[in-house]
């Protein structure tokens, strides 16, 4: 495809992945390139993840892993150091608000440097229609943007899924007017739950917090170590899940026997995670999502040691209670909810009254019920289809969105969490920036 046909690119979503993609695209020397970044929030750059202002909300990765630019992995580190946020050589877990500021500054520098090739539009993009040789992106205000290519960078859902309509996302804790002395239920026990607990604590919540997930596992803390060296030639690919997990466990045992830590194996494997995922059959992927992902996540997605210590203390004081089980029933009682939790092992049904239910469940159960309008719309128009696990959109390894008949689009692409059916681990910056760099190369080649 020639340059001119792809010269105008509309990016839907101006959060971390949208900004990273724009930065990579603008590396191209082409003078006919036009990049339009569309963001529905009042502020560009921060997206959902980095809008929090709470100082306790830290990045889950040290500064070393957080550059938004694939060609300059030290970019964020340098930025934070130049401004005096990082001193010495201790691992630095930056507050997420600081990372939001980094993204905003990166974008405003770009905007200043690129007055012609970059355009920012603050509006919600609501639908995409193929038109002639390109696409038309309609905005909520009735206007529309025409481009040769559009890239969806819509990130995580910012509203609970339809079957959790009674729940709220953590960002609404501040506006929700939750009774501070009343118990609160959190659905999920992963990193988002940790964020919610920290926010409730910071807002002076004194009522008990109950967090429920199938296994009730919480993320492990980081610990300094050295990832083992692996080549793809060492790793069994394309096998059944149980075969792979046996290999993995054996490698952990061998590494521990040599004085290492399981983290060294998890981190050593990381560069190959996408390749391993892509080598699996659909049924193996499905089994992983259903049976192994919760266990994998608590080892893979870890938290800063100081946050882990605080969480343990919250549990010890009885302020936070973890339940392995499921939400069996919810009824609304005026301002509060009556909820029934079924405990996993005992099948014991526990009923409690809570002031709010927070949705921290993480991964989408069904992308076609996404709270993001433009994503739902694409599926309805048959321009996109859910991946076989329904956790995101079906995309090729080149990030092209696949339509309802299985044809990859030549002008609708997606990056970030929306592509997790194909890439699995695509919510952290090191993976997103690499994906954005590859797509930018493809689109500007």
């Amino acid at each position: 495809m020639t340059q001119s046909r792809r010269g105008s690119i509309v990016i839907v979503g101006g959060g971390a992945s949208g900004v990273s993609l724009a930065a990579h695209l603008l590396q191209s020397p082409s003078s006919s390139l036009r990049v339009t970044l569309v963001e529905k929030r009042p502020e560009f750059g921060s997206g959902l993840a980095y809008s929090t202002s709470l100082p306790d909300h830290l990045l889950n990765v040290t500064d070393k892993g957080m550059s938004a630019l694939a060609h300059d992995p030290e970019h964020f580190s340098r930025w934070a150091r130049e401004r005096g946020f990082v001193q010495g050589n201790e691992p630095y877990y930056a507050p997420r608000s600081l990372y939001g500021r980094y993204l905003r500054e990166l974008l405003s520098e770009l905007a200043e440097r690129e007055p012609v090739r970059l355009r920012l539009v603050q509006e919600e993009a609501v639908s995409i229609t193929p038109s002639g040789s390109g696409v038309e992106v309609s905005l909520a205000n009735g206007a529309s943007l025409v481009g040769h290519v559009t890239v969806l960078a819509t990130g995580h859902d910012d509203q609970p899924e339809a079957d959790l309509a009674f729940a709220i996302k953590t960002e609404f804790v501040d506006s929700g007017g939750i009774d501070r002395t009343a118990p609160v239920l959190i659905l999920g026990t992963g990193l988002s739950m940790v964020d919610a607990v920290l926010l409730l604590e910071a807002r002076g919540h004194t009522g008990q917090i109950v967090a429920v997930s199938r296994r009730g596992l919480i993320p492990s803390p980081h610990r300094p170590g050295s990832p083992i060296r692996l080549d793809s030639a060492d790793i069994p690919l394309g096998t059944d899940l149980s075969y792979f997990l046996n290999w993995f466990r054996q490698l952990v045992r061998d590494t521990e026997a040599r004085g290492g830590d399981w983290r060294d194996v998890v981190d050593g494997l990381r560069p190959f995670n996408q390749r391993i995922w892509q080598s699996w059959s659909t049924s193996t992927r499905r089994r992983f999502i259903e049976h192994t992902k919760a266990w994998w996540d608590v080892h893979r997605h870890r938290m800063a040691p100081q946050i882990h210590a605080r969480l343990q203390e919250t549990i010890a004081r009885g302020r936070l209670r973890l339940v392995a089980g499921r939400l069996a029933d919810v009824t609304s009682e005026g301002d509060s909810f009556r909820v029934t939790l079924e405990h996993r092992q005992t099948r014991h049904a526990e009923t409690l009254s809570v002031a709010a239910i927070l949705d921290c469940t993480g991964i989408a159960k069904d992308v076609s019920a996404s709270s993001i309008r433009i994503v739902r719309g694409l599926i309805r128009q048959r321009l996109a289809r859910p991946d076989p696990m329904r956790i995101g959109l079906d995309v090729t390894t080149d990030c092209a969105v696949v339509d309802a008949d299985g044809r990859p689009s030549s002008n609708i692409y997606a990056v970030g969490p929306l592509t997790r059916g194909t890439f699995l681990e695509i919510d952290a910056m090191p993976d997103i920036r690499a994906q954005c760099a590859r797509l930018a190369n493809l689109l500007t080649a």
Partner: protein
Amino acid sequence: MLTRKGKYGLKALVDLSSRPEGQLAFVNDIAKRNNIPKKFLDAILVELRNAGFVQSRKGKEGGYRLARPAEEIRVGHVIRVLDGPLAPFPCASRTRYEPCEDCDEATCQVRHMMLDVRNAIAEVLDNRSLAEMRDIAEDTFEDLKYHA
């Protein structure tokens, strides 16, 4: 290194990939067609089943078939399961590393080059499917006929 086990395993899989989809093949027949000792083949097929490359059914009507389409099974993936990490020498593996008695791994130039070699091997074998491997023989045969 590709052992006889790896070679026999690949031949058995190519044999299965030539059967009509979903049809079971008898171990005896696969062994005869490919000149593989039956007992050895039994053991190989069990390993391939445990790794999820083939499915089996027991009993009189029993046998083996591919668990995934031949286009999806990569040659390199099969060899890893049967012969372990792809490595031209025992020292050129990171997980099944066997140091040589007579040299220092960190400074051994031979080992460093062999690590590059193994990555090149993996690159080739992981990009070739069982279906492509099956068709090589046919293509070569066609070529021979054509040029004859």
